[in-house]
Structures are given as C-alpha cells and as structure tokens.
C-alpha cells in the first residue's frame, strides 16, 4: 500500500509538470489550430535562462526572495520569447496551408534547441539545490518539500488560469477567439492581441514547468525539450487538445499512468504502454477525454 501511495505522489508531481507544459500546447492549439512544436524547447530554454538568472542576475543568492525573483524574471523573459516566436514564425503563416505552420514550428524548435546549445553548450548543466531538502514521512511514504511546492504551485496556477479564462472579460475573449475568430472580431476583439496573450501565458507557464524540471531533477540538457514537450503534448491530446481543463486532467493522468506502469508493470516498457494507451483512447474517443469537436481549419 505504501508503494501505491508513493507512486501516487510520484505521479502527481510529474503529472503537474506535464500539465503546466500541456497548457501551452492546448491554448495555442485552441486558438490557432497549430501544434506548437517549439513549446517543448521553450520549456528547456526556460530552465537554462533560470540558471543564468540565478548565477548572473541574482548572484547565486538562494533566499526565498531570490527563488521567487528567478521564477518571475524567467517567466517574463520567456513570455517575450514566446511573443517573438509567434510574430516571426507563425503570424506570417496564418493564412498559409496548415502544414506550412507545422514545418515552421519544427524549424523554430530546431532554432531554439540549437540556440540553447550555442549559448549554454552541449553539456548537461546542473541546477543548484535551491529548495531545501526537506522531507515528510507519512508511514512509509516520503514526500519532499519540492514535490509539495511543485504540486501546490501548479494547482494554484492552473486554478488561476481556469478562473481567468472562465470568469474574466479577457478570458471570455480568449474563448470566443478559439470558437470563431471572425465573430470575435465583430465583437471588437483584437484577435492578434489575444494570440499574443496566449503565447505569453503559455510560455510563462511552460517556463515555470521548465524551472520545476531544473529544481526537481537538477540536470538540464539542451535537447531535453523534446522529451518533456512530447509528453506534455500527449497530455494535451489525451485531455482533448484545445481544452484547458482537459490539459490539466491529461497531464495528471499521464503522470499517474507512467508512474504506475513503470512502478508496477515494467519501467522498460513504460513509453510503449503510454503510447498504446494514447492510441487506444484516440481510437475510442477521437477527440480526447474532454475534447469538443473542433473544426479542422483547412
């Protein structure tokens, strides 16, 4: 039983990171019907940016304030990068065939990934232990401070995002733009600004996800974006791409699923099982768990 609860904790920790990153995929897809393949690399880049902020800007201070500042600065910087990415790689292609934007996204992914390598080098870089190594024992289940932080902060951010999207005027504009861009324009909504906003939110959430990866696993490599990006992307698809609560659900489920599979079944086959689950769900429910039917832009 204690193994079960431990795996539950493991799954929720990794799942909340997947969910944070998945939100970036799902929001962009919701409004633009575009798989932003560069998002995973943005996440990787945030971890490196965060490390540099720590060493260069914060002077390696590891106080609580410094950690918060790292998060804010990194999220802000990555939000800017996200906006630039959209302007350069996606906006010119908004009326082009869909696949052109996909290739552009793949190109952007290469640029960011290799950009990281050029700036920070090909070697694994290592995060300092910024979060104190503190543990709680519940019976045999061990939960660390950082796990709790990741889970709590992710949940708070996701709830905040959900409320923002569901309850505010701008949130309604975001939803309107994802349903019908022309009708949104008729309401006086500047869809370009909404798209920029989507990239700001998605990139900063991704940045926080990236920093969590850095803080939790501590080793970061320039090419890790593909791995996390792919998993988060699957989470978004699982939940129903374009659907914000779906991305959260998908992330959590994927985290739990991979933890239980590698824990109970086989760690060597975890990826294969994860993808078989995905394929199965898509065959049975082609639009994901919470997905609505979104018309494909052709």
């Amino acid at each position, binding site marked *: 039983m204690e193994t079960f609860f431990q795996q539950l904790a493991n799954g929720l920790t990794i799942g909340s990171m997947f969910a944070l990153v998945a939100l970036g995929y799902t929001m962009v897809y919701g409004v633009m019907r575009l798989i932003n393949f560069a998002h995973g690399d943005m996440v990787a880049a945030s971890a490196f940016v965060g490390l540099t902020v720590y060493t260069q800007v914060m002077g390696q201070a590891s106080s609580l304030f410094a950690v918060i500042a790292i998060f804010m600065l990194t999220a802000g910087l990555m939000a800017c990068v996200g906006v630039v990415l959209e302007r350069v790689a996606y906006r*010119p*292609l908004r009326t082009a065939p869909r696949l052109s934007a996909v290739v*552009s996204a793949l190109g952007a992914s*290469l640029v960011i990934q290799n950009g990281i390598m050029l700036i920070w080098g090909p070697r694994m870089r290592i995060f300092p232990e910024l979060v104190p190594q503190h543990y709680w024992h519940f019976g045999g289940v061990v939960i660390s401070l950082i796990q709790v932080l990741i889970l709590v902060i992710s949940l708070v951010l996701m709830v905040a995002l959900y409320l923002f999207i569901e309850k505010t005027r701008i949130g309604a504009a975001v939803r309107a733009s994802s349903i019908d861009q022309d009708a949104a324009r008729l309401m006086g909504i500047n869809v370009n600004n909404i798209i920029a906003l989507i990239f700001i939110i998605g990139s900063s959430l991704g940045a926080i996800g990236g920093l969590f990866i850095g803080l939790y696993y501590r080793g970061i490599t320039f090419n890790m974006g593909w791995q996390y990006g792919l998993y988060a992307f699957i989470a978004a698809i699982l939940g129903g791409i374009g659907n914000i609560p779906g991305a959260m659900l998908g992330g959590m489920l994927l985290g739990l699923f991979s933890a239980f599979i590698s824990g109970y079944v086989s760690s060597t086959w975890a990826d294969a099982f994860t*993808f078989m689950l995905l394929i199965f769900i898509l*065959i049975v429910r*082609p639009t994901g768990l919470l997905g609505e039917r979104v018309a494909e832009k052709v």
Partner: protein
Amino acid sequence: MKKLSIVSLLVFLLVMAILPHLLDPRWQTVAVTFLVFSVVALSQDIVLGKAGMFNMGQAMFFGMGAYVTAILNSHFGWPIMATIPVAIIAPVLVGIVLAAPIVHLRGDYLLVVTIGFNIVFVQVLINNLGGVTGGPNGIFGIDPLRLFGFELSSQVAIYYYAFAVLLLTLAIMINLDKSKVGRALHYLREDPLAAESIGINTRLYKIFAFGLGAGIAGLAGSVFATQYSAVSPEAFEFIQSVLFFSIVLVGGSSIPGVLIGVFVMFVLPEIFREFSTWRFFVFGFAMILTMILRPRGIWPATFGKIPKFLIKEPKNGG
C-alpha cells in the same frame, strides 16, 4: 513547367549516374545515404504529399525493412537478396494493419498516433523483443549484397544498388500519377467528401497509401542496412520521421521537390559539418523562412498531368 521538370529530371539522372566516380569515399557514403533517404522521402510523399495524411512515423517502416534484413541475415543466415522481399512485405502488412483503425482520424490526431507507433517501435527494438533486435546496440556485421556471384561491398557498388532502387521508386511514383489509384489519392487529399461523393472509397485508398509507402520505405531500409552493415534503433527514432516529414514539406510534394528537400535537409548539413554546432540553428531559420516565402514548399506539386490530346488552344471569341 512540365518540360522543365522533365529536363531537370533527365539532367539529375545523368549526374547521379556518373556521380560516384567524381566523389571521394566519404562523399560516396553521403551520396548513397542521399539515395536511400530520397526513397524514404518519396514513400513519405505518397502518404503525406499525395494522400494528405499527417504521418510522422515513416521512420518506423524504414526501420522495419532494415531490421528484417538484418535479423534474417545475421540470425537466420538468409542471403541479403532473399531478405529483400520480406523487408518489403512485412512493413506493408504492418502498415495496413496499423493504418486500418486510424486513417479516419483528423490530421493532428493522426500525426500523434503515428508518432506513437514510431516510439513504440523503437522501444520494441531497444528492449530486444524476442532476443533478435540486438537491443540498443542493434545488429552489426550484416553481409554485403551478393548478386550473380558478385559481392557488392564497395561504396560504388552499393551506390548503384541504391540508385536502382531510387529509379524503381521514381518509376512507381510516375506511374502512380498516371493511374486511377494515384489520382484517387490526390482527390481524397483535396476534398475527401467530394472524393467520396464521386465514388471513391477513401478509407481503402488511405490504407493503400500507407501500405505502399511502408513497402517502399521497407525496401529503402533494407538497402540502408546493407550499406552500413549495421542497424541500430536510434537511426529510426521518431526524430528521423520528423526529418522525412519536413523534407516533403520543405521541398514540396513533387519528385524534384522531394529530392531537393532531401538535399537541403540532409546533404547540406553534411556539407556544413565543419560548422556542426551552428548548422541546425541556421537550418531551423531556413525552414521557417522557406515556409513563409514558399508555403507549399520549394518546388510544389503541379497538376495538369493530362494527355496531350486534351489540351486545345483557346478558341477565338470563345
């Protein structure tokens, strides 16, 4: 446009026919791989370009062909020649079985599922399923191809072997465009509903495209295994599928387009190997720029492949 493409194809073939004698051995290796990748990219073009299905798992079929040849040769002692038909048929069957339940999925979902297949495939290889795939190291020491008692072990010989396979693929591609099934693929890509309403069983043709693409990729895989006398899982990772996917779209879905795509996406990075750290950075920008400037690729597909007797001069005053 049409004349231009025929002339350029002929020039291309001529250059390719004498190329190995102009190259040093390292570039011969690159040239062989160019040929092999061209075949895979053309097979991807059948699925993605012609039939319009977002397939991001073509490296799986490529790998399947390579592994079939490697396994049958190294574990069961088959001559390479005998493994080739199996290297074609096995991916075809797998392609059909996998495609049947998924071809109805919408573009992006299909893309994800094919990525999934590719990743499962690589995991199967790494986990050494059945003890024959050699795990993460793959299989080394595959025999060279023997043809009529000659051993084709030099790079030049393998080059002509790969070139023959490319010519065969080109012949299939050209013939496909001039046949009912090839047109059916175009129709269903342009407008599946209209295609269905004019009597085309779109599901059947989608599966056909997958099967044919898988078979050609499998053949290319077999050549690839012989060229390197080694196969290993990382050559068939889904990143490789992304490469083939991008090749077709950057080049454009036409024969010259795909070949240009392979050149741009594979040979150019080899040429700029010296700038190894910068090349993919610049490359990513080039991909974005290409799409912005030429959203349909460098050399997009042209239609109008119709018999000459149908083309009439405009009538006066008509």
